[in-house]
């Protein structure tokens, strides 16, 4: 029985009637106040706090609670507990429906009165807890609206049997109003939560849109990542963002597009690390995002890049693989100096951002590849056009001499291999023709034969000519240039006059020959080129090595397969054939119908020594064709006969004759003593012997 009812029984009847009216009035008044409180408070805790102040006037209780049904988890959850006493019960505590008085009431939709908590056998755990907190009786009422069963409202009292049917009847009235309020509040909370969720999603979609816009409008990686970082910063706390791009060939990752405004410079762009040892590498291998809430983990200790990130003060990092068309291109790396920076929701957003970035990276790579190929093709086209202009009519090697046949056998032997060939021989002996023959007989014949005359290019430009340069590499480097090595990729590079290559450039050439890789002048990117090298010179490289004018290591690397182009005087039997060939060539070109070459002409020209070799012969024939106005070739033979003075020379001393002879040889060779085309070779002497004779006869180079 309630305290209100007990008081009524001890009163006289008239007083009791008055008291009853008064009690009824109080309850109506309280109901009105409850309605007002519901209208005032949208917030449930505030409402229940207000109810806890007003209801004790008409109902006795020491605690008041609100238990709500959680449909998602199918449990009853303590939402609010109002009591004057300290309690260990926490809001949010969940109980199974069948193990909770509120659950029973919610299920049955009937009020539940427990007059003696200690005697109650159900809900043992809760009953024990209530007993411990001096609660003796309990009344629980369903909270139900026209639309749904919300939960239950419970009252507890320190007195046993504190609640009777009158109380229940009144509290059911209160419960109906409270149920509506709770329903409204829950709906409001849901609406608020949905609104927040929508705002959140809107913000993230906006970020994705901004990332997309940044990708579309920024071709430059750095600007792109600054824009992406700014967009992400609005929804996600982060200090650092970068790209690690994968080099499939080397299985390495390189850091790009670093956006780290507060960085100390310990982490830099272009830093590289192997995939296995790096943290982004783990994300690449698993193809899943990797979030490290503590960067200083075991894995980080093995990674230099991770150590540098730690030294920069980063605590948390997230590595998201960049995957496009099932191909992993690298990772999007985001770091923060705050602990627990990245939630699952953040990671989900980063995955979406990474998907966009992956498309951009793939497109950028394809674009760069196309641009590079386009540039290369344009260069190749220009080069080939120039080749056509130069008119190389060297398809045929003319001659049947033993010396030439020996060379041709060597050409046939070496051509199918990829070995480096060094062609030596006097000027005009056809070294380039031999080089082209090697190329044409090799498996590289479908690709370009690129020629560089090292002597014809200013020494300061030779490095750029061979290896290319990046824009701004030197004053005048106004655009990127592809070098001849790149141009000759999968083809043949013919380095003519290799002896003229400056000493300081020789190590770089050696490196290309050994490792097939190089960097453009002013560039950092290593370029690989599959090039077969043929070098040629009319200088004696061995002597140059001995005189420290040529690096020995480069010489040995070049001299893998030496071929000596014979001088024309050693293949005199080819002179008539060559005569015929050049007469036809220039006769056709100049529209001259030359039908015969006098025998005397053939004899005289065959006896001539031809210091300029085939080039000299060709020029003589070209001149002769110009001079010939009939069907017979007219060669000014006087130029090729010894003069009268020569026929009967004045007798001098042997020493004087020797001196004159050496001087003539030196003048003819432009005072070059050693080497294949030097005076010693011409005189059939050793270089040291000639030098000794020169000293003895008082011949010094300045003469």
């Amino acid at each position, binding site marked *: 029985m309630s305290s209100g009812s007990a008081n009524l029984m001890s009163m006289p009847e008239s007083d009791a009637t008055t008291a009853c009216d008064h009690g009824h009035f109080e309850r109506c008044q309280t109901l009105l106040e409850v309605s007002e409180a519901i209208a005032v408070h949208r917030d449930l805790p505030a409402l229940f706090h207000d109810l806890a102040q007003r209801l004790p006037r008409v109902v006795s209780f020491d605690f008041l609670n609100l238990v709500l049904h959680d449909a998602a988890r199918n449990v009853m959850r303590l939402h609010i507990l109002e009591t004057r006493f300290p309690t260990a019960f926490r809001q949010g505590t969940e109980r199974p429906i069948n193990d909770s008085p509120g659950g029973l009431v919610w299920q049955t939709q009937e009020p539940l009165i427990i007059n003696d908590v200690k005697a109650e056998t159900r809900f043992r755990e809760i009953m024990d807890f209530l007993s411990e907190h001096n609660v003796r009786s309990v009344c629980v009422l369903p909270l139900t609206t026209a639309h749904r069963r919300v939960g239950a409202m419970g009252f507890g009292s320190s007195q046993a049997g504190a609640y009777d049917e009158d109380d229940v009847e009144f509290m059911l009235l209160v419960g109906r109003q409270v149920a509506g309020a709770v329903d409204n509040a829950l709906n409001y909370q849901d609406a608020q939560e949905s609104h927040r969720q929508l705002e959140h999603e809107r913000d993230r979609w906006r970020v994705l849109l901004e990332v997309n816009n940044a990708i579309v409008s920024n071709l430059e990686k750095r600007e792109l990542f600054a824009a992406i970082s700014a967009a992400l910063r609005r929804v996600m706390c982060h200090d650092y963002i970068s790209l690690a791009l994968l080099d499939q060939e080397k299985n390495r990752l390189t850091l790009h597009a670093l956006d780290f405004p507060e960085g100390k410079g310990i982490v830099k762009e272009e830093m590289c690390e192997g995939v296995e040892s790096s943290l982004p590498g783990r994300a690449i291998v698993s193809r899943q995002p990797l979030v490290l809430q503590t960067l200083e983990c075991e894995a980080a200790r093995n990674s230099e890049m991770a150590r540098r990130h730690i030294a920069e003060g980063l605590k948390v990092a997230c590595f998201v693989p960049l995957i496009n068309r099932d191909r992993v291109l690298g990772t999007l790396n985001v770091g923060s100096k705050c602990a627990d920076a990245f939630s699952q929701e953040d990671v989900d957003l980063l995955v979406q951002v990474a998907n966009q970035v992956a498309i951009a990276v793939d497109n950028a790579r394809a674009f760069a590849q196309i641009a590079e190929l386009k540039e290369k093709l344009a*260069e190749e086209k220009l080069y080939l056009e*120039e080749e056509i202009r130069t008119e190389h009519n060297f398809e045929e090697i003319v001659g049947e001499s033993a010396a030439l046949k020996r060379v041709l056998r060597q050409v046939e032997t070496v051509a199918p291999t990829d070995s480096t060939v060094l062609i030596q021989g006097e000027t005009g002996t056809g070294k380039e023709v031999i080089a082209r023959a090697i190329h044409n007989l090799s498996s590289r014949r479908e690709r370009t034969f690129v020629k560089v005359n090292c002597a014809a290019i*200013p*020494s*300061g*430009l030779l490095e*750029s000519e061979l290896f290319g340069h990046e824009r701004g590499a030197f*004053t*005048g*480097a106004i655009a990127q240039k592809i070098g001849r090595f790149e141009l000759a990729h999968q083809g043949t590079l013919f380095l003519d006059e290799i002896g003229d290559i400056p000493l300081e450039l020789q190590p770089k050439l050696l490196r290309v020959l050994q490792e097939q890789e190089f960097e453009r002048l002013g560039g950092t990117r290593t370029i690989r080129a599959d090039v077969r090298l043929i070098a040629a010179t009319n200088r004696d490289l061995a002597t140059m090595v001995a005189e420290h004018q040529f690096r020995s290591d480069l010489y040995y690397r070049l001299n893998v397969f030496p071929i000596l182009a014979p001088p024309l005087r050693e293949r005199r039997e080819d002179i008539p054939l060559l005569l015929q060939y050049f007469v036809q060539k220039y006769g056709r070109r100049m529209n001259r119908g030359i039908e015969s070459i006098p025998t005397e002409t053939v004899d005289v020209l065959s006896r001539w020594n031809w210091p300029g070799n085939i080039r000299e012969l060709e020029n003589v024939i070209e001149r002769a064709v110009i001079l010939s106005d009939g069907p017979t070739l007219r060669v000014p033979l006087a130029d090729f006969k010894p003069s009268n003075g020569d026929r009967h020379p004045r007798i001098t001393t042997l020493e004087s004759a020797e001196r004159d002879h050496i001087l003539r040889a030196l003048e003819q060779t432009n005072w070059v003593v050693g080497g294949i085309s030097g005076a010693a070779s011409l005189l059939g002497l050793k270089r040291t012997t000639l030098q000794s004779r020169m000293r003895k006869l008082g011949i010094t180079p300045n003469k």
Partner: protein
Amino acid sequence: LASRVPTFESVLKISLVSSASGIIFKLEGKLAGPWVSEVERSWYQATTNGEHSRITVDLSGVTFVNAEGRELLSWMHRRGAALKASDYTMKCLVDQIERNTQEQAGPRRL
């Protein structure tokens, strides 16, 4: 000389050597096309910072000069630059420029 068309290998390397006695502009490659204005720009950069007693344009590494390049060299020569050449063709060009400078004086508008 000026009628030849520069090929794909057209590149001009401009090196500046400054000393107390003056500046040497070392040009290597082909003085034609966009490189003419590059040389002109380098000239302005080098000469606006101070007075130099002597400016030498070293043409020993130059393999080709077109009409514009020749005009620039003439202009530089009129401004007091000494033109240094080593091969026959460039020596001829320098001779012509020097003769023309003596014959016709007048500022080149750049």
